[in-house]
C-alpha cells in the first residue's frame, strides 16, 4: 500500500473540514460511504486482475448487465434472493469465459475483456429495450437505503468484500500465486503453479464482484438502467492504480485500492461542496493518477540503478 495516500487523504479531510461547510456532517459521511461502495467493489475485483498483470475492461458492462437482469427478474416477480443468485451465477460464468479465453486460449486480457464489454453492453440494451426497467420490490431496494449499526448497508458490503479479499489475497497460497503469476508467469508455471486455474479464479472473482456491484446499484436506484456502469471499469482501474497496483503485475493490495477509492470519493465530494465544477475533480483524479505512476516509475529506476 502507499503510505503517502493516507497522508493525502488526511490533508484533504482537514482542508475540506475547514473550508467546506457540510463536509464533516454525519449526513455527508453517510453519502460518501454509499457513493463509494459500487465503484469500490469493482475496484477490488480489478485489483485481483491487475495483480496477475491482466486487466478487466468488462466489469462496468457486467455491472449494467447484472443490474438489468435483476431488475427484470424482480419486475417478473421473482423472489429477490433467487434473482440475486441468478445474477451472481451468470456473472461468474461470464468471468470464467473471460478467464478461459485469457488462460487456455492465451488471448490478451485487454482484447478479451474489451470484446466482452461490447457484448454485455449490447445485451444489456437489448434486454432493457434501451430503457430503464422499474420493479416493485421495496424490501430489495430498502436494503440499499438502510443502515446497520448506523452504517449504510452498501458500505458494509464494501467492507466485507475488502476484508474477505484482503485475507484471500495476502494470506492464502492461492492469493500468493496471483502475485507470482503477475511477477513472472513462466517462473510461476515452472515452479508448479496451476496458472490457468489461477487466472480462471481471478476473472471469476472480478466478474462476481461486478455482479454484486450491479445488484447493489440497481437496489440503490430502485430501477435497472441499461447505461449503468458505463465507464466504471476505468474508475475501478484508476482507483486500484492510485492505491499502488501496477498494470505490469505483482503490485497492489486491497487496502491500497480501498484508499484509492476513498481518495477519489473525498476529493470529488469536497470539491463538489466547495461548488467547483464536478469536472475539476475528474481532472485532478487524472493528474494524480499520472503523478503517482510517475513517482513509482522513478522509484523503480532507483532500484534498477542500485544493481
Amino acid at each position: 500500500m502507499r503510505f503517502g495516500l493516507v497522508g493525502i487523504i488526511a490533508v484533504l479531510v482537514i482542508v475540506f473540514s475547514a473550508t467546506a461547510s457540510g463536509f464533516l456532517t454525519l449526513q455527508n459521511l453517510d453519502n460518501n460511504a454509499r457513493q463509494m461502495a459500487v465503484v469500490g467493489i469493482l475496484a477490488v475485483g480489478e485489483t485481483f486482475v491487475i495483480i496477475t498483470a491482466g486487466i478487466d475492461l468488462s466489469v462496468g458492462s457486467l455491472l449494467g448487465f447484472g443490474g438489468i437482469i435483476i431488475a427484470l427478474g424482480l419486475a417478473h416477480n421473482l423472489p429477490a434472493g433467487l434473482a440475486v443468485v441468478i445474477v451472481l451465477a451468470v456473472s461468474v460464468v461470464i468471468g470464467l469465459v473471460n478467464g478461459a479465453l485469457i488462460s487456455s486460449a492465451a488471448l490478451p486480457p485487454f482484447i478479451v475483456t474489451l470484446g466482452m464489454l461490447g457484448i454485455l453492453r449490447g445485451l444489456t440494451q437489448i434486454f432493457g429495450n434501451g430503457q430503464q426497467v422499474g420493479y416493485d420490490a421495496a424490501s430489495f431496494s430498502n436494503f440499499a437505503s438502510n443502515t446497520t449499526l448506523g452504517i449504510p448497508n452498501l458500505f458494509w458490503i464494501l467492507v466485507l468484500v475488502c476484508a474477505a479479499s484482503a485475507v484471500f489475497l495476502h494470506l492464502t497460497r492461492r492469493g500468493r500465486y496471483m502475485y507470482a503469476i503477475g511477477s513472472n508467469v513462466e517462473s510461476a508455471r515452472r515452479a508448479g503453479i496451476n496458472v490457468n486455474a489461477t487466472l480462471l479464479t481471478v476473472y471469476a472473482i472480478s466478474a462476481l464482484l461486478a455482479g454484486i456491484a450491479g445488484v447493489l446499484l440497481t437496489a440503490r436506484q430502485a430501477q435497472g438502467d441499461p447505461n449503468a456502469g458505463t465507464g466504471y471499469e476505468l474508475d475501478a482501474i484508476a482507483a486500484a492504480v492510485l492505491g499502488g497496483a501496477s498494470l505490469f503485475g505483482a503490485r497492489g493490495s486491497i487496502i491500497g485500492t480501498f484508499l484509492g477509492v476513498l481518495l477519489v470519493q473525498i476529493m470529488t465530494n469536497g470539491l463538489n461542496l466547495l461548488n467547483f465544477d464536478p469536472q475539476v475533480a475528474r481532472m485532478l483524479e487524472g493528474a494524480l493518477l499520472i503523478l503517482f505512476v510517475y513517482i513509482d516509475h522513478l522509484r523503480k529506476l532507483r532500484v534498477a540503478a542500485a544493481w
Partner: protein
Amino acid sequence: MVSAAPAQALAPILRARAISKRFGNVIALQDVDFEAYAGDIVALIGDNGAGKSTLIKIISGAILPDSGTLAMRGSPVYFHNPRDARDAGIETAYQDLALAPDLDIPANLFLAREIVRPGLLGRLDFFDRRAMRERAEEHLRDFGIKVGSMEQRVDTLSGGQRQSIAVARTVFWGSALIIMDEPTAALGVAQSALVLDLMRKVRDAGTAVVFISHNLPQVFEAADRIAVMRHGRRVGTLDPRTATMDQAVSLMTGATTLESVSQPRSSQQNRGGNIPPS
C-alpha cells in the same frame, strides 16, 4: 578410458542407459549413457546442439526419451512430466532463473510448495509466513548465502544473489540430484565464484550435481568429472585433475578421439581454475 567414478559413492544415484531421442529427422541423442553420483559434481559439456539440453530435459521429466531407461538408486523410474522427476528428488535450476522477482526470498524458496498453517487455517489454504521465513533463513545460513533482510523483494538483490537464491531453491528441494543449467552464464567473476562455491557445498552435503556450462575454466574448477557430448553422443569422460582444457575442446569438436585424450596432462599445469574471487 578416463572414468573417475567418485570414491564415496558405490552406485550412481541416477543412471541413464542407452537414451535416444529424435525430433523429426534430427537425432538429438543416440545411445547415451549418463550417471550422477551422490557427493559428486559431474559437468556436462558439448557444443551447441550436442544434446546436453535434451539429455537434461529427459532427466528432469520435461520430455520423454524414444528409447533407453532411467534408474534411480538402481530402480527403474519413469518420468512423464517434471512433477514426477521433482517428486523423485530431482530439481533443475534454469538458465533464466525462474524466480518471481516481486516476491520476497522465502516466498521464492517455497513457491508452489508453501508451508501451510497448522490445523483449520492450513486446510483453508493459509500459508505460514513465519515458518517459511525461519526455514529459509536456516537454509541460506547453512549454505553461507548472505542476502540481508529476508523480506526484500528478489529483484532488489544483485545478480549473483538472485542466482544463489535460485540455486538455493533447487538445493532445498532437490534431495537426490540437482541440475544447474548454465548457472553462471549471466554473472560476473565474483558472483560466479559465489555460485560455484555454493555448488561445492551442495556436493559436500551429499547431493549429486549436474553442472552444464560453456565456461571451461569454471567446469575444470568445480567439476569432479566431465562428461563430453558431441552430435548427440557421449564421446567421453574427463578427469579434470588430469585432463586439459585443450583436450576437452578437441573432444567437443571431434578433433580427437577418446584414446588420444586419455594421456595424463603435464604436471606443471594446475588443476583447471581456482579463480580467486575478485
